């Protein structure tokens, strides 16, 4: 089996000042429609799961079956790309360390999420390291919700990753270079990564790195099919 950490898109964070997001912090992956935000987010999840860390995937739009099928697609790609031999063992590891919480029919609110996280910790001793939150509409969601997430991240000592859709027709960028819709929220996020595509390929670029300026060259090129890091 090849080393997952060498091809994980999260190797980008090795170039960040804290070598990662860190517990109690929020991170966001920004991209335009159809570029593969969810795929990238799931790669972040696999990075954690293969480290045998517990993870909660919070979905605000897709059913658990759909989320699981996303994971399966990415996992099958990983099996092929990394030449994983003991596929069953790795799959069992993923199943054992991941729980999907889905909030359908606009049923999401922070109180429910906190209650559910408490249930996981108290009732089944599932203490998550990471929360992946997919499906939040950054243009519609108020700032206090993200502030609530920040408090929950601190309370449960988890790192929380979001995905944010960058609308094609809005080019606004704040004075720190953070584009819409994260331009008014960047103080709440410790890491902001942008997923972009050009003729040269698909790239992940670190645009916010905790309290420091991202280092020049904090970019990783991805395979557009597998979303694994090429260089």
């Amino acid at each position, binding site marked *: 089996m090849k080393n997952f950490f060498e091809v994980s898109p999260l190797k980008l964070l090795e170039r960040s000042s804290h070598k990662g997001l860190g517990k109690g912090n929020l991170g966001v992956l920004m991209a335009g429609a159809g570029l593969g935000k969810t795929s990238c987010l799931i790669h972040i999840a696999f990075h954690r799961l293969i480290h045998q860390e517990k993870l909660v995937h919070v979905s605000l739009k897709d059913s658990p079956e759909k989320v*699981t099928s996303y994971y399966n697609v990415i996992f099958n790609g990983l099996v092929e790309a990394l030449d994983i031999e003991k596929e069953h063992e790795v799959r069992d590891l993923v199943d054992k360390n991941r729980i999907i*919480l889905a909030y*359908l029919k606009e*049923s999401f609110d922070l109180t429910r999420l906190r209650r*559910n996280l408490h*249930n*996981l910790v*108290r009732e*089944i001793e599932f203490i998550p390291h990471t929360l992946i939150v997919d499906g939040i509409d950054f243009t519609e969601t108020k700032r206090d919700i993200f502030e609530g997430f920040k408090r929950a991240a601190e309370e449960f000592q988890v790192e929380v990753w979001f995905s944010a859709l960058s609308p094609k027709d809005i080019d606004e960028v704040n004075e720190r270079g953070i584009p819409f819709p994260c331009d008014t929220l960047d103080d709440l996020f410790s890491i902001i990564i942008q997923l972009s595509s050009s003729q040269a390929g698909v790239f992940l670029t670190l645009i916010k790195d905790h309290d420091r300026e991202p280092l020049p060259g904090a970019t990783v090129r991805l395979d557009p099919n597998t979303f694994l890091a090429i260089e």
Partner: protein
Amino acid sequence: MVDDIKRLRNIGISAHIDSGKTTLTERILYYTKRIFAVHEVKGKDGVGAKMDSMELEKERGITISSAATYCEWKGYKINIIDTPGHVDFTIEVERAMRVLDGSILVLCAVGGVQSQSITVDRQMNRYKVPRVAFINKCDRAGANPYRAMDQLRIRLNHNPVLMQIPIGLEDTFSGVVDLVSMKAIYFKGPFGEEVRIEEIPSHLLNEAIVKREEMLDAVSMFSDELMEAIFEGTVEDALIHRAVRKGTLSRQLTPVFIGSAYKNIGVQPILDAVTLYLPSPTEVESSALDMDHDEKEVRLSSNPDDPLVALAFKLEVTPFGQLTYLRIYQGSLKKGDDLINARTKKRIKVGRLVRMHADEMEDISSAGAGDIVALFGVECFSGDTFTDGTLHYTLTSIFVPEPVISLALSPPDNKSKTSMIRALSRFTKEDPTFRSHVDEESGQTIISGMGELHLEIYIERMRREFGSDVATGIPEVAYREAISRRAAFNYTHKKQTGGAGQYGRVAGFMEPFEEGVYEFVNQVKGGVIPTEFIPAVDKGFQSCLKKGLLIGFPVLGVRITVNDGQHHVVDSSDRAFIQAAIGAFKQAYVKAKPVILEPIMRVSVECPSEFQGNVMSSLNQRRGLIMSSAEDRIFTTIEAEIPLAEMFGYATTLRSLTQGKAEFTMEFSRYSKVPESVEDELKVRYKEKAKGGRT
């Protein structure tokens, strides 16, 4: 006879036990002139309501097994499929839900939305069944249709809209005000058959105006045309009906009607609602699996001229032979036609074609797409698909999971034994996941199925319907054994006891085989084992798979490769090579590090969200692996994988944990290695059993 498929309705009447659905069905049949007298459900007059064709149902006043009946109303033909109200009857529920296109959800005006209504409604959601609601028993003390409607909104997440208001309530309940026509409706005559339309009583006029406005507000969301007409003050009844229909079909609106079936009030308007708001078969998407293309899903057309595709959804044994209920999804069917059973590939001839009316029948000569009919004397199983032979479609997957649990039955006397055999023959035809066999060693009859409840239901039915009062053993999980590494064998079977001897040597190896149950590979070269003996070697190995050496359960996933051996020109025989293979298997099996596998079930629990923590904890305590939890405002669905051995008695645990407000389903997922502690325990139990068998 109405031939237009657009004027056909296949509906279910679903509700909590005792909310009066059987009485409602009886009244519907009376008003549609299918019966000429009405009876009470509990059979005080010794006749019993028409839809309760099983003894047990008659006695309890509930409906367990679905029956279909046909009636006509104002130029529409309606097939009523009486759906089971019990959650436990999964196969019955699944089949009934599959064949109906819409439903009347009956609620009790006193009890409101009870836990069983929640379950039934959730099942209808799962099958995307549009429904209209009927709040029954408005004549009873404590009746409050408005509270029941609120519960429909809050507890079932519906968007209910009141289409009527009551005239009086409890013992003064005498009719309804229709908010579309703004007329009062009274039901006169001995059984309410005479519908009288009158002006709204003056004391109800203001309330009716307010409620109509509320109704128009809700309904206009589904029609811009209606919205405009409201602004312009030109609302017509037809416009309202169209909008209600649109909302109902999209399952975003539930029109609510009120009445008392027992007091013959409000039944005819609910029949009107069925024709006005519930879908015809052309408005429901149906699909089949194409067996020529790896069970790829294909859309069916509901066109009577296309090739026939029909589902046998229920069997009944009658004094005249087996009666098979059929839903025609595509094409048409007539007396004398040849049909092909997609499962057996056997051709059958349509002899008698009948339309069912509970337990009476009417002979017909043909039926088309969308219709529900019954065939006589056709040998088939429930769930079988029939086509005209030009298509290789099936409406249910031909994959039938292996049973995961079994139970020994002991009939106390010969009479019980005879009726048990009859019952088992019937049940195994109805339900492919239910099996029975006689154990060679103990001579006991063993039944197997997909869970504890599954078997309990059939045992109860055996007692009730067939009078077979069998004693049952303790349920046993269907464990399996498997090898975990490759191991070689080289075994010689040699016996010389006077006369012809026995000689055979087989050599090779066994290894784990993930792709299937068993594979035999012959790599013997140079005729060291003559070709004619190779099948005997294979047979010998296969005989060992039936009973593993660890705990006596079947062995899964083994590939045997034989690459060497020896024979004797005189003493070798099939028998000798069978024995040689058995010896070789025993020699290698232990070296191949066998493990015990247990069935892992995919368990899905639906509960009100406040019970999420308790339910998760209960699953976790049963060696469960929680996979996900999905909320939809009111309910949470928790999915987990749990060993079957840990699921005994879970229904009771769940009931007490959630005040009976949760339900669970489970299905086989896969086999997985048992933890060491469990393995040790199983081995000890097996040794004790073997020891007991010897003494």
